[in-house]
């Protein structure tokens, strides 16, 4: 590699100087660091693309804004209610969504269960509140489940305010009211009340799941585990 001599111009007295490997290593490391930050910046600010997987969108029973109450979706009259305490910047919540999303969709769709979202905002103080507020704005316009799916589905995105508004538009709920709510952090006080309700219930980590008030142990945070817990009540 560095042993090969560069072609020498015979007309010039050349001083032979090798760049020491140490310098090269430093340069390589600086370039790597720059590449890392640049790649993520690009990914974070990439275009919003809704992965249309045809998720059924259940009706919103309780919208955001009622102090101390989460957002509930589904068919009222279901025997089972699933409470999910989540944070939109929590990696384990993204995993949970990926593992159980289809199961939850089915349970809600066939009227077995209703689903209550309790969006918390402590994982990333810089971003969680913004995403939770945007979720509330989408839920107020009737699209809670799809919005959650998209936020977790592209977890590495920064989800800037512009991206959140774009997502709302693509899901068909991005009207002026939605945009205003996203920009003005309209649901901040409601989110505080949700956080307080979670504290009072002793919830201090996400995701935390209750099935009809009974906490689902963490090792049951799977499609099967959730299905079993629901079946135990519904059957």
């Amino acid at each position: 590699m560095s042993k090969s001599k560069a072609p020498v111009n015979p007309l010039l007295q050349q001083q032979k100087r090798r760049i020491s490997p140490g310098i090269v290593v430093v340069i390589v490391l600086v370039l790597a660091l720059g590449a890392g930050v640049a790649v993520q910046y690009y990914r974070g600010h990439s275009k919003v693309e809704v992965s249309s997987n045809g998720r059924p969108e259940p009706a919103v029973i309780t919208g955001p804004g009622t102090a101390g109450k989460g957002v509930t979706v589904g068919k009222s009259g279901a025997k089972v209610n699933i409470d999910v305490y989540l944070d939109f910047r929590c990696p384990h919540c993204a995993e949970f969504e990926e593992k159980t999303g289809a199961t939850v969709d089915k349970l809600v769709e066939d009227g077995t269960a209703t689903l209550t979202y309790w969006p918390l905002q402590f994982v990333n103080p810089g971003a969680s509140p913004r995403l939770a507020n945007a979720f509330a704005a989408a839920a107020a316009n009737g699209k809670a489940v799809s919005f959650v799916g998209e936020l977790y589905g592209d977890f590495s995105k920064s989800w800037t305010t512009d991206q959140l508004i774009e997502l709302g538009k693509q899901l068909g709920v991005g009207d002026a009211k939605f945009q205003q709510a996203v920009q003005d952090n309209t649901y901040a006080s409601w989110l505080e009340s949700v956080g307080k309700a979670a504290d009072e219930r002793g919830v201090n980590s996400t995701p935390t799941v209750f099935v009809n008030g009974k906490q689902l142990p963490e090792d049951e945070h799977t499609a099967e585990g959730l299905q079993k817990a629901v079946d135990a009540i519904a059957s």
Partner: protein
Amino acid sequence: MRTWFPWFSLLARLVLGGVMLVAGALKVTDPETAAQAVRAYELLPSSLVEPVGWGMPFLEIAIGLLLIIGFGVRAAAVAAGVFMVVFIVAVASAWARGLSIDCGCFGGGGQVAPGQTKYLQEILRDVGLLVLAGWLWLHPVSKFAVVSEPDTEPQGVTAS
């Protein structure tokens, strides 16, 4: 210079480089989680958390590759050693402050339930790797390296 030194240095290069490479590769695909793991230490101001979380995996991969191919071993070993010192200090401080977090060394990270922490294992592992980095700084000449160190010409027979 014993005859087995270059062989041991080769082993050190592959182990230290391999660990760095794997640790970086596991994190590089999930920058948001890596940033989350950094944030859980509660050591950095929030403006620095993301660049560190996003950049560190790339640095680890770069250092790991340099060690494995054997280019600029002494400098790469110093870089790896600095990383290990930083990791040890960070984990020790998390332990001392009574946080319950996973080091996030190989992806994942963030808060875990109290009693689920593995601080001692994490620190011991990093100390072991730090020792390897120290060895490589003292004896960078090794078998099968792309570049032999210019300032430490080998006394024995090398295969490189």
